[in-house]
């Protein structure tokens, strides 16, 4: 008996764990985004592909660079930068100049994430920070939409894609006129609604047969990919649900007041990247509340704000700003929505 060379390992309880690692979660988000990426390439051709690569590589390179600068182990393997890059690309117009996309990617990670201390400390969704930055810097390019399913989309770049850095991108109007199948107006369904009062059929919106940002046009595909993550327990379904709920309720309110003036809730939900934002953007774990009630409040707030900004603000991409606002409000929401604990005393104990 008595093995004296026996080595005892010591830890504290619990000794067993069962959790996916952060890297596994992030990788699964990447997998869930790939079909969306593929669909956008199918719709918009090699320009979309180049755009996806540009933002993703730019995000990952930035992440790696800052880790290297601060002498830390590189965190690109946790794939969170790749997630930000993919998300970012999908919110940009397919013909967005690549050099601007690279700047967006850099900003997303540098200002949206590293500045706050890296993964887990970011207050805002990094991809949205990147997007907001380029929205302000390049207001024209970010609102230049090109038609989906252009004939030679797999062999020819959208002219603006390859714009040289700091050069004004080539105008796409002429090109658009050439390739568009039937009278493409250069406007997304939201812009059509807002500025020309034209409603796009909700079914077309749902399937994705419309112009729009690279990855946010097909609500159906977005829901399927989101469902995969929910099934893997890597996406909190409560956030998208609350965002959609908030959107529907507020849209319904206006629609009820004046159906001829305001769009239907279905239109609101399926247009302008709302579905994409609800499923993949608002649900960014780090920048959304953790408390059950807080999650609902956050989602509802984002949904309601989106409707209000869309109807009364000057911007069509309202949901992005709504989410950034929700992110900013997260700490306050959390403070006021702490869960009721088991066995909580009826009267809060007064501290004497």
């Amino acid at each position: 008996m008595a093995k004296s060379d026996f080595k005892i390992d010591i830890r504290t309880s619990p000794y067993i764990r069962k959790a996916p690692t952060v890297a596994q979660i992030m990788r699964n988000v990447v997998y869930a985004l790939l079909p969306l990426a593929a669909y956008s390439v199918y719709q918009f051709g090699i320009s979309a592909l180049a755009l996806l690569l540009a933002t993703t590589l730019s995000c990952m390179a930035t992440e790696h660079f800052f880790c290297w600068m601060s002498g830390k182990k590189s965190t690109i393997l946790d794939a969170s930068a790749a997630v930000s890059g993919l998300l970012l690309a999908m919110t940009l117009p397919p013909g967005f100049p690549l050099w601007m996309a690279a700047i967006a990617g850099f900003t997303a990670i540098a200002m949206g994430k590293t500045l706050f201390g890296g993964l887990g400390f970011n207050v805002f969704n990094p991809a949205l920070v990147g997007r907001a930055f380029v929205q302000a810097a390049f207001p024209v390019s970010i609102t230049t939409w090109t038609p989906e399913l252009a004939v030679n989309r797999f062999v020819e770049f959208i002219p603006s894609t390859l714009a040289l850095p700091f050069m004004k991108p080539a105008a796409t109007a002429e090109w658009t006129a050439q390739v568009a199948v039937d009278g493409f107006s250069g406007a997304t369904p939201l812009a059509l609604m807002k500025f020309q009062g034209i409603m796009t059929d909700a079914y077309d919106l749902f399937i994705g047969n419309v112009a729009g940002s690279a990855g946010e046009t097909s609500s159906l595909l977005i829901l399927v990919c989101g469902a995969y993550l929910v099934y893997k327990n890597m996406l909190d379904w409560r956030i998208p649900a609350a965002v959609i709920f908030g959107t529907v309720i507020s849209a319904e309110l206006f629609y009820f007041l004046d159906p001829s003036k305001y769009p239907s809730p279905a239109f609101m939900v399926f247009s302008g990247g709302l579905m994409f934002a609800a499923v993949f953007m608002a649900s960014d774990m780090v920048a959304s509340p953790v408390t059950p009630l807080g999650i609902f409040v956050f989602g509802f707030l984002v949904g309601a704000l989106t409707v209000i900004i869309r109807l009364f603000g000057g911007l069509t991409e309202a949901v992005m700003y709504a989410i950034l606002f929700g992110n900013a409000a997260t700490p306050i929401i959390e403070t006021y929505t702490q869960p009721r604990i088991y066995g909580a005393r009826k009267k809060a104990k007064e501290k004497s």
Partner: protein
Amino acid sequence: MNLVNLFGKKTFPHGIHPDEYKTETNAKPTRRLPFAPEIIVHLAQNIGKPAKAIVFKGQSVTRGEIIAEADGFMSVPIHAPVTGIIKEIDIAPNAKGGKEPAIIITTSLDSGQQVPEPDSYNDYQQMSREELIKAVQNIGMVGLGGAAFPTHVKMSVPADRTIHTVLINGCECEPFLTTDHRVMLENIDNLLLGIRIAMKCVAAPKAIIGIEDNKLNVLAAIKPHLPSDGSITIEAVETKYPQGAEKMLAYSLLGIEIPSGGLPSEVGLAVFNVATLAEIGALIPKGQGLIERVITITGDDLEKPGNYLTPIGTPLRYLLDYAGFKGTEAELILGGPMMGMPARSLDVPITKGTGAVLVLDKRATKNDDILPCIKCTQCLQVCPINLNPSELGLLAAKRQYDVMEEKYHLNDCFECGCCSYVCPSNIPLVQYFRIAKVLNRERHLQNG
């Protein structure tokens, strides 16, 4: 009031479903472990005050004789687990990693090891409530579920409180453990007698045995023995960790919440572990002391995992040898994998509160890097107390221990480990909370 229970199984909200690992030992009948050549009996066997040794070096003691007496109300006596000679009264390693006073006995291996038969048998029905509670103290009884809280103290319900139900906890929700399972199958008569004694002690008209629905054979075995008047019933609850926590069990069975910081008696409940009551049923009639208990020995690299009736004070070294441990490096855990204590030495002995010895080899001990909290909300979704472990963890990192206590209910955390279990960032949340509690306690002491 108990919404969860409207839909199917009786259960509580949140919690986790870890792999059970129980099949290795749950069908193995309890076997007696031989006497180790040397037995180490710590004087601090229970929560509260340690016992006072009343033997001296060189004295010979008979198995079952009192070797240390209770030091006040919050203390219980200790009986000799073996017949032998007192080798020393000295400090010896304990499970907490320190050393504590202990009585070390050299076993007389040729002595037969009989506990002397009592002159007369006690009939609990002839005894008053006070006499019974005193008798429970005299046999050295503590909670065998792991807490080692003196049972007679629990039974001494304040006069202004009425107990309507005794809950008997047979959940055994920790993975790997099968002690209670075996006790419930093998000691039904003792268990029922123990339940009646407990009911008398707390003056409760009703008792419910709660088991997890992974032990339905227990339900089938006990049902025919229950009294026809329905005063004692047995009910299955969902197999889910930490179902065996008294707060969870009270909610699952009755939809009652035990108030924050309060005792079960505040809401008319008294909760006992099955093994405790089975021992009370076995020992009270004979007036004999608690000198051994059933322990599950299981885990990796063991030739003979099983349930062993083990003398208190048996050193781990002997236990592992007997169970045929072959490894060279492992974690030794006293108790279950969720809440057990790590043993730091093979000389650590079994105490009254040790329900299991779990061996996890180094595969299981691999540690990943700790990453920042990504606010994934998993921990909030499993915490049975509905705390916010994510925020608590962030505050702990910032050393804001006072805020943790005052705003985020740190003291309601009972360290079940669910939050650490699910955290993808591998944050040792429970450990943070333990440290925070200790530091808070010290701060309160300093501030008077």
